């Protein structure tokens, strides 16, 4: 087992993991196919389309000129509890852990050094400058993002040309699976 970086250890030890409760966890095609193929669950069962306003490069449509969505991990909602990431593991002592581990999405790997941090209850001041876990892979991250943007653009072009065919989140997920062939 490889030693954990200080940043990953800080995140793993966090009991609250508000980031798994309060934030939409947006995923890429690489994230979705990696998770789906490893745990053998189709992606439409663990992702949801989240409406978005901005013209993000991963925003997809389900109808010509229709509203745009981003793909995020689904949530589990126990009665009386705040909804949380479907993959969050809850322990009797109040601890929480990520059930995806090494499979977790890029956005979780980058947390909180990339993106907003107001939700986070951890003190990262001693980590951000010297932890190499999230920032060691910027090229891979950019390649992954660009590839997914191309897959989404291809989907959006198909939808615009579809003549109003009724399309669903499941159809979009199947498009992703087709765009990322399984490794043989």
């Amino acid at each position, binding site marked *: 087992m490889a030693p954990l970086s200080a940043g990953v250890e800080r995140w793993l030890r966090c009991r609250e993991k508000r980031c798994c409760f309060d934030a939409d966890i947006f995923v890429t095609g690489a994230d979705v196919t990696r998770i789906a193929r*490893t745990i053998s669950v189709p992606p439409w069962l663990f992702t949801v389309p989240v409406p978005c306003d901005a013209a993000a490069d991963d925003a997809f449509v389900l109808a010509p000129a229709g509203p745009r969505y981003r793909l995020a991990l689904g949530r589990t909602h126990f009665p009386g509890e705040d909804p949380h990431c479907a*993959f969050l593991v809850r*322990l009797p002592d109040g601890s929480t852990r990520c059930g995806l*581990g090494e499979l977790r999405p890029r956005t979780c790997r980058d947390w909180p050094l990339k993106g907003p941090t107001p939700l986070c209850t951890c003190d990262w001041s001693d980590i951000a400058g010297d932890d190499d876990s999230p920032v060691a892979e910027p090229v891979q991250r950019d390649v992954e993002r660009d590839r997914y943007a191309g897959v989404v653009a291809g989907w959006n072009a198909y939808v615009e040309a579809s003549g109003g065919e009724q399309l669903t989140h499941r159809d979009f997920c199947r498009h992703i699976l087709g765009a990322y062939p399984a490794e043989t």
Partner: protein
Amino acid sequence: MTEGCFSCSGRCCYDIVVPVTPFDAWRIARDQLLAFEAFVEPCITPRSVEHGFRLSGQDRYSLVLRRHPIEAAACTFLAHVSEEFKRCGIYPVRPLVCRVYPFEIRGGSIDIRTDARCKPSDWDMAALDYARRGAEFARYAAEWEACRQIDAAWNAALNLAENGVDGVDHADAFRGYLAFIERVSEAFFAGAPSADRVAQWSARPALPEATAEYERWLESLQGAIGAASRA
């Protein structure tokens, strides 16, 4: 994920006590950076069970996984991906008893348990990787033997400590036992250069009885128990 588990909603993760070996617990604690107490608890064992550690009194206990804090029938490590699909949240380090489920050794070979919760059609027994399953059972058998030896060493030490003492606090004794199995595990796995020692060993294709490799494994275990007992 193994083939028969693809379509399952985690039936084996509900309403079943999941016993774990000391090494199971240590692997989970190390991988997830968790205190043992966060995910295991003692469960009284039947008199017929060979292993078992004492706490206060004469009852013997096994380590079992705790239950989910909200859905009490479920394993605490079960992730509720959807209504249809549940998945193990510690799959790479899941306990050995989960790894070998739903199989057992019967008639000298591997067969599906008669009380398995899987649907009969879930497993293609003709396509089963018997060699890999056999290696898992070898590891399973060896680690439960380790559990018996660790528990015996703990019980012997507890007997000595209790000599002339009126009683031992149950919770204190459990914390002591957890500290003991952590010391044994650290000592046992410290000898591996980098990879997980048991993971290397588990590639053996046969059951472990009377093999030279298994004997060496037991010698290492005895050394680790001795070192932990002296600490």
